[in-house]
């Protein structure tokens, strides 16, 4: 810490950063536009001007840009002096010259950084009397709206979209005072992170197109801290509700997890909550038909089914909370609790858990960004764990950034650093069946099925640790690649091994563990990151039920005659015949919020709350338990699953904490999950945290069409938050932050006020807690894994191509069931397809887009043929699309005959 003087007052600041960061970290106000905490400084907008003095005697000073000025001991500046105040006022006046002043019709209004900065600089009178430049807007697809007249040319959008997220279908067009931020032609933005433009742009140029469909001002949204439910990474979110519908999702900063950003699946997948098709009423099957019933009647009917069961099978869910899954386990008994993860993925998740327990330690996304070498084994992270893609895109800059360090260029000086490193990238290997988007930044790509990738991983491990065996069947090119990769990994300061469940291969996850441990022997900073399919896959695995195959068996053999299914569609888990034969004559109690085949087959249907109407804990792929909170109270019959199940089990849990207490004593390994967020009795200044903003409008009139009396806010016994505008409105503990808002800072930029320092953790204690300490428990280290045969890959010339090995291909828009109910997202999903290598397609006489029927074990699928030039011969990929008949992968199939047209 060093001392700096701001307007003659001494402050402690961190050395090494820039002055703007320091000033903001001190809680002082200084307007800015082009600087962004994740993207550093470029000094483009000139808004952050301050006066810098040589010493105490200097009365003149000179104007500098705070964002471009390194913080040094004894630095003396003024924010309040006339000179810099005037300068800032002029700058915003220029920036605003062409601005249309259309705040009342602008979606950004009320949470606009430009509005805030305009007020902060006291620019309140417009002197510019001339014609403004106007632009034609573009259709950028279903996610992001474009209204370019509002642009102030800060360049943040292109710096995020192109420089940070690596996309290339967007640019700056034109020059001088006619600068167009957009695409060469209209068309959907291709980046998986396009939605961040909405938050990155300080004006209303880029706004959330789905919000526009049901627009609400920030101040009228009821919000709560939440966790994204659309993949296994657990990004932190702020969903907002009004009148019982969810209106949008924003990023909730977490210093270790998602930082400032979200992927587009996470931001735009929310609309399933609003779907009219969603089960909303309790139902009981009468005379073969599902008919609406009261919640009490349905509960009684379910109780009767469970009570009279000769044997129970409870199927948990990787997309339901720890608490809901635990409640089910308590209802049916640990021995009758089964996983609702498709068995082939379930095997992978359990292996991933085992590897995480052995170690080496798994990195947070923030730590991934700081790794200087990485190997990705079998994963298409862009589609399976999207934000990991964004993190790896930062990681490949770390090694070349060393150059900047040697030249003593501050790393936050984005312009010079990018200029310096140009296209240099650190070592990255992508080993996967087909091409992935990250290939474009990879030093090496390796195309092969899982067994080939296993061989490459083990060969690399062997290069690092001579005590390991040489993998069988290692060919020369793979051996050479392994040597090169191993050398780069050994040289790295913080090398990373990424793998996971995406390939459906347990051996691959084990091999990733072997490689990471071999690496850790050379460098203890080595890390192992493993992806999992769903938002609570790991939590479900930690609860330790049996797998779904065993559930089907118990039902088929009649050991269970009643199944209680929690937020799962059984038809997604196993082939149709297997599910139907197991369920024949069985009784089914179903809790869900998604419509589906299991819901239709239910004997009793209990409508469950989505993440937005429920409280609970999710465990992400690092084993981090994070709490999500109800955004709005469930309507009608809808209840949180754990509450239905608690009532069914006669538990009478008074609140969520009671569930967690019971969970902690039943499963001590999971006890720390209780600490993911403060408990329900937590108060600040005697108050609960308000979910509604202090400007929430219409409180007394909102139900005036029904009653003139203002209703009492709904009770919330489960959390330290309240469904009201009355409550604590300051900075609560990190896990309870319902929105970023601070006096003078109405936009998301308010979040610097919530951070301990710029880019640091949020104030008020941690959010979430890690449940896994590597080396402390669990399995023994596997040191060798054998690469299986039946392998397609560069070395596989000796194989004959009578059969195809099919592995999964994941899609950010399409593979996840909940988000696929959101229209904006579903529109971008591919049609069901089988991807074939050109050679295999030619051999089978198949053309692109031709309809085919692929015969899997127990399931035939009608698909389109897609020809993927990157696929090695003998290997095929099946597009994983929510709702299509379940098949077990990897699978070996006959090359498909052409189907009926």
């Amino acid at each position, binding site marked *: 810490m060093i001392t700096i003087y701001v307007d003659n007052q001494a402050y402690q600041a961190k050395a090494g950063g820039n002055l703007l960061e320091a000033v903001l970290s001190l809680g002082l106000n200084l307007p800015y536009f082009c600087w962004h905490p994740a993207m550093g400084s470029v000094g483009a907008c000139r808004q952050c001007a301050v006066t810098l003095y040589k010493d105490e005697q200097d009365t003149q000073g000179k104007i500098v840009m705070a964002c471009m000025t390194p913080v040094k001991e004894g630095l003396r500046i003024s924010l309040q002096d006339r000179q810099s105040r005037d300068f800032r006022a002029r700058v915003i006046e220029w920036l605003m010259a062409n601005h249309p002043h259309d705040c009342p019709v602008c979606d950004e209004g009320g949470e606009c950084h430009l509005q805030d900065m305009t007020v902060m600089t006291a620019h309140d009178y417009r002197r510019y009397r001339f014609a403004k430049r106007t632009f034609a807007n573009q259709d950028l697809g279903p996610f992001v709206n474009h209204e370019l007249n509002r642009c102030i040319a800060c360049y943040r959008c292109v710096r995020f979209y192109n420089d940070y997220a690596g996309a*290339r*279908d*967007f*640019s*700056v*067009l034109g020059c001088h005072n006619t600068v167009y931020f957009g695409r*060469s032609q209209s068309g959907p933005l291709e980046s998986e992170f396009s939605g961040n433009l909405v938050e990155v742009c300080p004006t209303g140029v880029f706004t959330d197109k789905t919000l526009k469909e049901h627009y609400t001002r920030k101040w009228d949204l009821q919000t709560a801290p939440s966790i994204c439910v659309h993949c296994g990474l657990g990004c932190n979110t702020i969903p907002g509700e009004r009148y019982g519908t969810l209106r949008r999702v924003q990023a909730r900063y977490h210093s270790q997890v998602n930082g400032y950003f979200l992927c587009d699946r996470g931001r735009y997948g929310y609309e399933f909550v609003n779907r009219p098709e969603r089960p909303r009423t309790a139902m009981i099957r009468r005379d073969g038909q599902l008919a609406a019933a009261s919640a009490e009647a349905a509960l009684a009917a379910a109780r009767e089914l469970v009570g009279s069961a000769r044997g129970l099978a409870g199927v948990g869910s990787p997309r339901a909370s720890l608490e809901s899954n635990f409640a089910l386990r308590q209802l049916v008994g640990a021995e009758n609790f089964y996983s609702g993860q498709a068995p082939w993925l379930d095997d992978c998740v359990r292996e991933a858990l085992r590897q995480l327990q052995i170690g080496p330690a798994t990195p947070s996304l923030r730590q991934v960004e700081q790794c200087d070498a990485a190997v990705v084994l079998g994963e298409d992270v862009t589609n399976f764990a999207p934000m990991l893609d964004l993190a790896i895109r930062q990681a490949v800059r770390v090694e070349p950034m060393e150059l900047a360090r040697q030249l003593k260029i501050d790393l936050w000086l984005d312009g010079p650093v990018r200029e310096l490193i140009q296209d240099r990238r650190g070592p990255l290997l992508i080993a996967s069946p087909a091409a992935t988007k990250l290939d474009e930044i990879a030093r090496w790509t390796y195309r092969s099925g899982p067994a080939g990738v296993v061989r490459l991983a083990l060969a690399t491990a062997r290069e690092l640790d001579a005590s390991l065996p040489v993998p069988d069947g290692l060919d020369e090119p793979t051996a050479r690649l392994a040597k090169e990769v191993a050398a780069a990994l050994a040289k790295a300061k913080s090398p990373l091994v990424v793998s996971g469940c995406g390939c459906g291969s347990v051996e691959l996850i084990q091999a990733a563990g072997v490689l990471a441990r071999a690496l850790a022997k050379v460098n203890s900073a080595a890390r192992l990151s493993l992806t999992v399919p769903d938002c609570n896959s790991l939590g479900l695995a930690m609860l330790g039920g049996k797998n779904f195959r065993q559930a089907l068996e118990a039902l088929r053999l009649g050991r269970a005659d009643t199944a209680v299914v929690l937020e799962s569609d059984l038809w997604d888990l196993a082939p149709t015949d297997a599910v139907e034969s197991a369920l024949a004559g069985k009784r089914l109690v179903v809790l869900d919020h998604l419509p589906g085949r299991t819901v239709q087959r239910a004997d009793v249907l209990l409508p469950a709350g989505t993440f937005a109407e429920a409280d609970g804990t999710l465990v992400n792929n690092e084993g981090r338990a994070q709490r999500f909170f109800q955004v709005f109270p469930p309507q009608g019959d809808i209840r949180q699953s754990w509450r239905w199940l608690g009532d069914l089990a006669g538990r009478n849990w008074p609140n969520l904490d009671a569930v967690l207490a019971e969970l902690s004593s039943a499963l001590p390994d999971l006890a720390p999950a209780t600490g993911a967020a403060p408990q329900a009795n937590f108060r600040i200044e005697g108050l609960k945290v308000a979910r509604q903003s202090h400007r929430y409008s219409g409180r007394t009139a909102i139900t005036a069409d029904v009653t003139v009396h203002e209703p009492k806010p709904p009770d919330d016994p489960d959390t330290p938050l309240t469904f009201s505008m009355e409550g604590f409105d300051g900075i609560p503990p990190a896990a309870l932050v319902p929105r970023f808002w601070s006096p003078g800072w109405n936009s998301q930029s308010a979040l610097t006020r919530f951070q301990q320092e710029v880019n640091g953790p949020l104030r008020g204690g941690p959010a979430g807690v890690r449940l896994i300490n590597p080396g402390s428990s669990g399995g023994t280290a596997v040191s060798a894994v054998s690469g299986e045969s039946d392998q397609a890959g560069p070395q596989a010339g000796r194989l004959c191509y009578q059969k195809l090995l099919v592995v999964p291909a994941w899609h950010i828009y399409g593979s996840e069931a909940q988000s696929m109910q959101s229209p904006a997202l579903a529109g971008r999903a591919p049609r069901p397809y089988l991807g074939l290598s050109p050679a295999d397609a030619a051999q089978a006489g198949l053309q692109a887009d031709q309809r085919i029927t692929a015969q899997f074990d127990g399931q035939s699928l009608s698909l389109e043929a897609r020809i993927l030039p990157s696929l090695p011969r003998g290997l095929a990929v099946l597009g994983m699309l929510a709702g299509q008949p379940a098949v077990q992968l990897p699978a070996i199939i006959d090359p498909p005959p052409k189907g009926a047209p």
Partner: protein
Amino acid sequence: MLNETEKEEVARELERYPTRQAACIEALKIVQKRHGYVSDEHLAELAGLLGMTEDELDGVATFYSLIFRRPVGRHVILLCDSVSCYVMGYEDIYRHLRGGLGIEFGQTTADGRFTLLPAPCLGCCDRAPAMMIDDDLQLDLTGPKVDQILAQYQ
């Protein structure tokens, strides 16, 4: 579509630079030389040759005011509107051109003969007011002189 000569010329430029993108300005000029401007189709084709996206190449093309992304007339008039020319009577010249051709800055005559554009400086302050037609500098302009000059460009 680029013809064979254009493709060869682009290929020759590509050899002169360490990265393909670096040849992009020259490549745009090659297209413009023959067609007068760079159409969307040509832009897309060039982008492919240069290993750039259309968006990236369009960013370059639209940055340079002398790369035209819309059709222009047979002759392009660049009239200097910078300080020296302004002082020396640029406004009269502009008025004269407007009257004679019936077009404003950014427009092309109906017969496709002239496109009129402003230029921030032609580097001839000592002989202001100045303009440039195609590759020819025209200096010390007066109204009558402008008429004479225009007649030479059909």
